[in-house]
């Protein structure tokens, strides 16, 4: 355990692969990227010291190919594998295979993962560690009849959840028994497809809860600390959309109670590395354990910004057997951080994914802005993976300023050629309910159900000057366009044609 890690294989893609590769560079470690055919031109391939092809684009033929990844680790001499999030990150068989192959898995041991990775197992472990949890089954449902019995027992409404779940897949709310059969079928088939396991269990549905999670770090020397909470209540279809740290609903006493509960759970499972305990918190500030994510989270940057720590550095240090370089008392939260997950999807069109070529990319920067990004101008968003493009994160001394800063950054941000959810964030961050932190897991669905005419998009007072400016800009673009098409036989792309014409017509460069 005490030999230092020298070379890390990053078994992932997109922004998280790049984020881990950056950490490797900062720690002076060699790095190995792997890629599918769809990702040959992706940023993580060029960022690593070495890169090897996994296979065709489909995840099952590339990023989920345990055998290929271990083979590449062996051939390249990588002595550690960072799984990122998604893909193999919560796959205990993969962790076990790494252990057998003598390659460090940068995550918990396969045994700790087995105790916590499956949601049903985690609920059993939580019971043993005396954590409050949502009433419901701790076993996968064997039949519709069993589902009906458990649901009646805890009382409707209930939630169906995939035992292997994550990212909101395989989840269904069920209001009454008449919906149960259909929901169970849907949840099972979705879980089967997403995780290769159709195991589903039942939980009581907590009314208007907040989704709040505790970030943990545990080393191999028995030290386990919590790094405060993240507020993840802004969700759509159980997928997080906006995350923040700290939560407006958590005071120091509640933080300590939730943090201690999470530490108890991790220690009961012999957990090491970074992990996240998810809780529901009701209006009376009761908290209920939901599940444990035995990996780095998408939203880890908000914790990094308020604690000043680097979770990926710490994951690597823990994996090579270093003790945590601080204790619980050293962890001090300061300021407020908000993350927006920028996706290639069209909120105006049922959140349909929008793969395709990013023809233009203007990015935000300046004070308090961090971007963890896996895209570039000219890159084509592939069809084969989750459509996350980038994470924009704002930090400021207060929540109110962090919101204004994020709005400022969103104003600077532009993705051309494909639809994104950037305008949705403008709407959320401008909404009175969000700004007063009156959010629960149903908040976003309610906001989306409101007529969009009440938002800043079209509800603003008509600004004649701005309309004139837009019209003049359109005419200038068009004039250059037509001139280009006429004089150059229409071969140039609009932007280039406009550029060329601009130059010809003496517009200052």
């Amino acid at each position, binding site marked *: 355990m005490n030999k230092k890690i020298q070379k890390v294989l990053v078994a992932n893609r997109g922004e998280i692969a790049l984020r881990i590769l950056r950490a490797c560079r900062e720690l002076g470690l060699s790095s190995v990227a792997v890629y599918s055919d769809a990702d040959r031109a992706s940023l993580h391939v060029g960022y690593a010291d070495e890169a090897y092809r996994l296979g065709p684009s489909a995840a099952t033929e590339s990023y989920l190919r345990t055998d290929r990844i271990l083979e590449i680790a062996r051939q390249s001499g990588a002595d550690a594998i960072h799984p990122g999030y998604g893909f193999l990150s919560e796959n205990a068989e993969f962790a076990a295979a790494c252990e057998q192959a003598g390659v460090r898995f940068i995550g918990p041991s396969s045994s700790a993962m087995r105790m916590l990775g499956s949601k049903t197992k985690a609920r059993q472990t939580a019971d043993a560690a005396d954590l409050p949890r949502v009433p419901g089954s701790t076993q996968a449902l064997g039949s519709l009849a069993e589902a009906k019995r458990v649901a009646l027992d805890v009382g409707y409404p209930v939630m169906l959840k995939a035992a292997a779940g994550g990212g909101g897949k395989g989840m269904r709310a069920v209001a009454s028994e008449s919906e149960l059969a259909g929901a169970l079928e849907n949840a099972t088939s979705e879980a089967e497809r997403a995780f290769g396991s159709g195991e589903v269990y039942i939980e009581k549905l907590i009314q208007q809860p907040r989704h709040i999670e505790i970030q943990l770090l545990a080393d191999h020397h028995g030290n386990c600390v919590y790094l405060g909470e993240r507020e993840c209540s802004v969700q759509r279809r159980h997928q997080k959309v906006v995350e923040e740290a700290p939560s407006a609903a958590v005071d120091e006493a509640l933080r300590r109670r939730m943090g201690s509960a999470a530490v108890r759970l991790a220690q009961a499972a012999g957990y090491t590395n970074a992990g996240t305990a998810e809780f529901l918190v009701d209006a009376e500030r009761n908290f209920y354990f939901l599940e444990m994510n035995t990996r780095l989270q998408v939203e880890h940057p908000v914790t990094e910004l308020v604690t000043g720590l680097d979770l990926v550095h710490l994951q690597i240090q823990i994996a090579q057997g270093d003790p945590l370089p601080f204790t619980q008392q050293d962890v001090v939260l300061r300021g407020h951080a908000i993350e927006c997950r920028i996706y290639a999807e069209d909120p105006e069109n049922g959140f349909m994914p929008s*793969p395709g070529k990013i023809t233009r990319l203007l990015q935000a920067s300046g004070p308090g802005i961090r971007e963890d990004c896996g895209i570039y101008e000219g890159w084509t968003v592939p069809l084969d993976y989750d459509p996350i493009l980038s994470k924009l994160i704002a930090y400021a001394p207060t929540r109110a300023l962090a919101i204004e800063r994020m709005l400022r950054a969103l104003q600077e941000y532009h993705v*051309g050629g494909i639809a994104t959810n950037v305008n949705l964030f403008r709407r959320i961050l401008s909404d009175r309910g969000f700004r007063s932190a009156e959010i629960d897991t149903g908040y976003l669905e309610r906001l989306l159900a409101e007529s969009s005419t009440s938002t800043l998009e079209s509800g603003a007072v008509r600004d004649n*000057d701005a309309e004139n400016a837009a019209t*003049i*800009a*359109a005419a200038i673009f068009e004039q250059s366009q037509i001139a280009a098409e006429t004089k150059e036989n229409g071969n140039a792309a609009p932007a280039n044609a406009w550029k060329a014409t601009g130059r010809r*017509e*003496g517009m200052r460069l």
Partner: protein
Amino acid sequence: MKYKIDIDGRTREIELIRNSENTRWRVMLDGREIEADAVRVQRDVLSLLIDGRSYTALPDPRGDETAVVLGARRIPYTIADPRSLRSRSRTGAAQTGTRLVKAPMPGRIIRVLVHPGESVAAHQGLLVMEAMKMQNELKSPSSGTVTRIAVQPGDTVQPAQVLVTIE
């Protein structure tokens, strides 16, 4: 150059006149004269100064659609002037009583929720398609009757492929 531009729910008439080789333009907009100072920055970004107010605009074509991004807003527009080549290519495609529900992107059909001959309401779910790891329901664009279902569960579909016909 004179244009008619349909933008933001209005049809505007606009004429651009360069003053000279500098950055200033004289603009006739719906009969009113406006002085605009226009400079290209960052490749395709236009900086416009009008009466001291500063605007940053960039073209944002997406598929067939032309649009201007101005600040936080994306404003689609069409050129009504007959000299515009693009406006001509976008004519046709008149609306009839038949609605074709097409695949918006490549994906796989998971479930079909209606059957031929069934009456559907506007926004009623027709089928479930999986694309980019997400299942999405495709909804009916209007009320009517399902006259044809061109796919079945398990089919892989391509963008713009017709899936369901509603009359």
